[in-house]
C-alpha cells in the first residue's frame, strides 16, 4: 500500500485516481501508524510553501516524513512536495524540510522562451525532460515523452541529485533524487501514459524493496 500524505495542500485525489486506475492500493492519510505501515510514500501538494510548512509542522507530519526517509522507505515528492523537501524556498522566505540539500528559485519574468517571446509565469503546460542521470522511475518511458507542469518556483538541489532538466527560459531541474528518494516538479498523474508509467515504476520499486503487496 502506498500512503499519500494528507497535509491539506490542495486536492490530493488526482494522485489517488491515477493509482486506482493502475490498481495500486493507496490511502490518503495523515495517520502516522498508517504511513509507517505503508510500503512507499507519495508526497504531493500544490499551493504556497509557507502555509504547507505550517500545516506539516502543526500536524507533526514533517517529522513523520523525515522518519520514513531515515528508514529508507521509498518516497516520491510531486510538485510542491518536490520543492519543500529541499532546505529553503524564497516563497514566503520559508525554511523547508531539509531532506535533500538545495533550495528553490522563482522563474524570472525577464526570461525568454526559445522563440524570443517573454515567458509566462507560471510555467504551465507540456514540456520535455533532458536526462542527466539514469533513474529507475524513467524505465520504459520514451526520451521524447513530455510531462505536465504547473509551477512558478523550481527546485535547485545539489548538482549530484539532478536527474532531469527542462528548458523554459532557463534550464532548471525538473526531477531530482537518489535511489529510494525521488521528486518530480511535473505532475505524473496528469501526464498521460508516461506519467502513469512513472507511478507504476515507483510502485514496482516499493514492491521489490519493501515487499508491497
Amino acid at each position, binding site marked *: 500500500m502506498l500512503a499519500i500524505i494528507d497535509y491539506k495542500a490542495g486536492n490530493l485525489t488526482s494522485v489517488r485516481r491515477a493509482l486506482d486506475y493502475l490498481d495500486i492500493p493507496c490511502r490518503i492519510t495523515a495517520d502516522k501508524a498508517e504511513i509507517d505501515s505503508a510500503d512507499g510514500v507519495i508526497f504531493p501538494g500544490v499551493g504556497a510553501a509557507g502555509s504547507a510548512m505550517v500545516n506539516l509542522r502543526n500536524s507533526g507530519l514533517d517529522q513523520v516524513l523525515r522518519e520514513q526517509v531515515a528508514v529508507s522507505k521509498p518516497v516520491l515528492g510531486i510538485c510542491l512536495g518536490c520543492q519543500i523537501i529541499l532546505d529553503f524556498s524564497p516563497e514566503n522566505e520559508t525554511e523547508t524540510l531539509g531532506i535533500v540539500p538545495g533550495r528553490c528559485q522563482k522563474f524570472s519574468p525577464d526570461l525568454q522562451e526559445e522563440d524570443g517571446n517573454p515567458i509566462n509565469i507560471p510555467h*504551465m*503546460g507540456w514540456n520535455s525532460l533532458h536526462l542527466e542521470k539514469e533513474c529507475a522511475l524513467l524505465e520504459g518511458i520514451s526520451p521524447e515523452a513530455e510531462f505536465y507542469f504547473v509551477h512558478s518556483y523550481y527546485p535547485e538541489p545539489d548538482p549530484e541529485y539532478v536527474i532531469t532538466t527542462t528548458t523554459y527560459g532557463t534550464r532548471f531541474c525538473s526531477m531530482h533524487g537518489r535511489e529510494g528518494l525521488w521528486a518530480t516538479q511535473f505532475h505524473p498523474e496528469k501526464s*498521460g501514459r508516461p506519467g502513469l508509467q512513472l507511478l507504476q515504476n515507483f510502485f514496482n520499486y516499493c514492491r521489490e524493496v519493501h515487499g508491497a503487496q
Partner: protein
Amino acid sequence: MLSKRIIPCLDVRNGRLTKGIKFKGNVDIGDPVETARLYYEQGADEIVFYDITASAEGRGIMLKVVEQVASQIFIPFSVGGGVSTVSDMRDVLLAGAEKISVNSAAVKTPHIITEGAEAFGSQCVVVGMDVLQVPVTEQIPSGYEIVIHGGRKHMGIDALWWAKEVERLGAGELCINSIDADGTRDGYELNLTRLIAENVRIPVIASGGAGNPQHMVDAVTAGKASAALIASIVHYGEYTVPGIKDYMHKQGVKVRREW
C-alpha cells in the same frame, strides 16, 4: 520549451454530447466520457467540456461526467458553462477537473475571477471571452468588443482592456473566441489573438474558425497563442489529433508527439 497545445472542445447537455461525434467508421458517440477517452488516447493535450445545461439538475449530471472523466483520463481538463459562483468552481474541481472556465459570469461578476484565483490558484481559472469586431470608437478603441449570449448581447467593453483586466483580477489563462470567425472554418482571428497575446503575460488559447491544420500553425505562430481549441474539424473525422500534430511538427511547431 513548452509545447503548443491542441485542445478538443466538447459541448455537453444533460450529460450527453449535443451533437453525435463521428470518428472514423462513422460510429456515433454521444457519451462525453467515452469521447474524452478517445481524444486522450489520440494525444489531445487537454480537453474542454462546455456544459450548456442551465438547470441545477443538469449541473449534478455534469459533475458525475467530470468524475468519470477524471478516473479515466490523465491529462488536464477544464469545464465551462454553468459555473457562476466560487461554490460551483469548488464542485467542479473536487470532481476532478483541473480548471474552470468562466465567460459571461466573469463579465457580470468580475470578482469571481479573484475569488476563484485566491481559493484555488490562478492556474485553475480560465476566462473565456466572446469577441466581435466592431468599428473603433472611444469606448472600444481596439475595435474588438466583448459580447455574451453567443454574440447577441453587446457589453460595451473593449476586448483588449478586458483581457488585461481579467489578468489583473487573477485569471490564469484566456480563451479568446472570435464570434466573427466561429463556424467559418476560414481560420482563427489572428489579429485579435495576437493583439491580446502580446499584451498579457498569461497563456492565450485561440478559439473559433479552425478549418485545417495550417490554421492551428497560424494561431500559435502569427497569432502567438499557446494553444488552439478545436471542435468540428476533429469531431466529424475530417482530421485527427495525431494528424494535426504531425502537420504542425513538420511546420516546425513544437507539439507533444509521444503519449
